[in-house]
């Protein structure tokens, strides 16, 4: 019984990081109605950034966290102007293909540089023991960082001028334009934020598990499941959805082989989409 509880708690911790990743995806969708199919590739880049920080720069692993946020933000702005700017407002098909093309380029380059071999960055953090069950330090740290970053995002969106401008653009782009907000800059920044969130979640995941260039695909599907659970365009829902998914994974892991879990997720994903088109935690947008 306690074994399951420990698994569930661990799942919740990891789930917070899933939620962070999904927040990146859902932010971009909410602000500019684009579903970023390069999301998985960016998570992978975040993972490799950790590797570079630790092994090429020789720095402490958690230095990679703010590094990824900054680089992710800037990279996201570049990606916006390269691949997203021109397809906004066009049929959804176009933005799907465009972001997917970005994904192809990024993964292709990644494979050329790092091949598809597994990489691992062991991170040393003190664990917490409780009644004979150990909770790994990295999991706890990752969860705390995810929540802190989410909190910072909240502060940014709701208590700064830039954040308010971004929300205004998300709400009604024409009206925002009329009030003098430079909407294109705001869109690029929102995209940058989304990419930063995805990237840093990759960095955090890399502190927990080994990874390859192709890992992004699984986590991208993961993020989609979470956004479906939490409702598209709803960052708070994304965090809750992430925790919920982590919880489900925690419940499932003791009972089924690891390779089955993506199939269960996929099934859950399709089921949720058909049964709850607005998301389970949806604070419904009429």
């Amino acid at each position, binding site marked *: 019984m306690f074994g399951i509880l420990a698994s569930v708690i661990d799942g919740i911790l990891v789930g917070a990081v899933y939620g962070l990743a999904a927040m990146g995806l859902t932010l971009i969708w909410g602000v500019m109605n684009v*579903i970023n*199919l390069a999301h998985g590739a960016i998570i992978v880049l975040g993972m490799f950034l950790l590797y570079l920080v630790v092994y090429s720069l020789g720095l402490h692993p958690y230095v990679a966290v703010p590094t990824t946020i900054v680089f992710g933000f800037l990279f996201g702005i570049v990606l916006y102007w*390269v*691949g997203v700017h*021109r*397809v906004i407002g*066009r*049929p*959804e*098909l*176009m933005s*799907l*293909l*465009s972001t*997917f*093309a*970005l*994904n*192809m*380029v990024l*993964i*292709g*380059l990644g*494979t*050329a540089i790092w091949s598809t071999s597994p990489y691992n960055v062991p991170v040393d953090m003190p664990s917490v023991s409780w009644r004979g069950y150990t909770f790994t330090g990295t999991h706890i740290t990752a969860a705390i960082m995810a929540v802190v970053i989410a909190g910072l995002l909240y502060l940014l969106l709701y208590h700064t001028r830039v954040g308010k401008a971004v929300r205004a653009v998300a709400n009604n782009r024409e009206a925002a334009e009329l009030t003098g907000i430079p909407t294109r800059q705001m869109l690029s920044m929102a995209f940058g934020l989304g990419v930063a969130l995805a990237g840093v979640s990759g960095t955090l995941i890399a502190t927990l598990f080994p990874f390859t260039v192709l890992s992004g695909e699984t986590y*991208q*599907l993961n993020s*989609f499941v979470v956004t*479906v659970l939490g409702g598209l365009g709803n960052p708070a829902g994304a965090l809750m959805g992430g925790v919920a998914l982590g919880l489900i994974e925690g419940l499932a892991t003791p009972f089924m082989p690891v390779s089955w879990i993506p*199939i269960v997720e*996929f099934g859950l*994903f*399709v089921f949720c*989409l*058909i049964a709850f088109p607005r998301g389970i935690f949806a604070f419904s947008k009429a």
Partner: protein
Amino acid sequence: MWRRPFPWLIVGAALLYALFPYFTDDVGLRESLLLAAIYIILASNLNLMIGYAGYVNFGNIVFFGLGGYICLYLVTGWHWNVILAALAGGVAVSAVALLFGLGILRLRGAFFALATIGVNQAVQQLVVNFEPWGGATGIYLSLDSYGPLGGPMQALWVMYLLIVVLTAASLLASYAIKNSKFGLGLIAIGQNEDAAAILGVPTARYKALVYSASAFLPAVAGGLYFFKSGIIEPTSAFSLQTSIEAIVMLMLGGSGTIIGPAFGAFLYEELRGFLLTTEYLSHFQLVIAGALLLVIVQFAPGGLLGWLHRQWPRSRRWLE
């Protein structure tokens, strides 16, 4: 439709295409033309989903691979005639696609697109674990299988001709649908699905039908192609890379047009051939394809044919 010139042009071109390597007895040419023909089949049927209905089927290769497996299984395990086996594969795959389509086509844009990838990966996993179909090693054909067709050499020619027939059929079907009520409904869905529904288009039914229709010819082609190859195994049968390249070819040539996919397939093959002589890393193939897709989507979403139509508006009439 046979009263218009265009279908006859397709038939004529197909005849030339089929007979040219035959009369020059050039096996190398036949092989590259066969590959191009396969790509045209994939891209052209993909056009029904992407170009008409506006739904991106990233995992379209699953029809091809599954059709291939069913055909080879019927030929090796049940000693069926290859043509019947390939047709059976086509029927089976499109029937399953119809049922499945009713479910996953309820998903909006990106989710549908991802779900199609998921379907492909899931089917691949199932096949890898399915012993009667050879599991991870796949199914091999012995030379005897080519007996009924007059031996391996002759069989290859027969397969080539049949595949060209399928290519012509794909283009003709594309044309017939575009000029039908069904096609008009699909295109309306592709333009604005909600508006189409309010206008009375039975969107759910039409989407499932086109998904199923877009599965048939690729599945039959898969049966013939893998029979010709003599072997089918999960990695190449369900290769996501090929699936994506079909999309790039479609967009390159001109999504929504009839012969756009044909142009796109040729252009892409030329490009790839050129690249392979200068770059030997296959990862860059994905990068180049991705960059190409990015450029097309942003600057020339109508592809080659779209560009031609804008330069010479009168070409819209005869160059569909």
